[in-house]
């Protein structure tokens, strides 16, 4: 699968394809985490593979963040995310999430 951005670091192998359904891990460790709380535990679909980037959780602790982690843009239905959502059924929210926060759904 082609990445949106080229990778210039040693990287973990990507394991998800565009269109694949994934569940965001429902976990709350300490530290700087880019995965929003409100999306943890929800199921979405891989919209694109963005590329591999140094892990921000490690960078925040002054380490290299290598090997780089695959990053995906994941699409979720708004009505699945927000209880009582009043917008259109087709409304989506797209979030960029690192691979180690995703598992097959």
């Amino acid at each position, binding site marked *: 699968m082609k990445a949106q951005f080229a990778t210039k670091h040693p990287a973990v192998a990507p394991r998800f394809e565009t269109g694949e359904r994934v569940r965001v891990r429902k976990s709350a460790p300490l530290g700087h985490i880019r995965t929003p709380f409100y999306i943890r535990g929800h199921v979405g679909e891989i919209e694109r593979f963005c590329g591999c980037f140094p892990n921000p959780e490690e960078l925040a*602790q002054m380490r290299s963040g290598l090997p780089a982690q695959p990053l995906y843009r994941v699409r979720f239905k708004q009505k699945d995310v927000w209880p009582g959502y009043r917008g259109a059924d087709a409304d989506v929210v797209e979030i960029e999430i690192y691979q180690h926060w995703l598992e097959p759904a």
Partner: protein
Amino acid sequence: MGGLPAGKVERTEHDYPEWERRVDAMVQLLRGGGKITVDELRKNIEGLPPQAYDQLSYYEKWISSLTQTLIQRGVITTEELGRKMEDLERRGR
């Protein structure tokens, strides 16, 4: 913010005071020079006590976080910072 209720989004442009421009410049230079990462800055903003997080302005959060980051990186020491702050306070009187 993070799915919690928040205030109205201010859509009008506004001018930045000189100190805010300086904070921005310091952050850009330190990031560009590879001395710090944006992720450390974010970690240290998130590490502010909840009351400070709610009350500090955008650039007040940045300068608090940048200071913490520079201490963690060993660029400045807590003692140097404290003494400089005392100096400035005396000059301001």
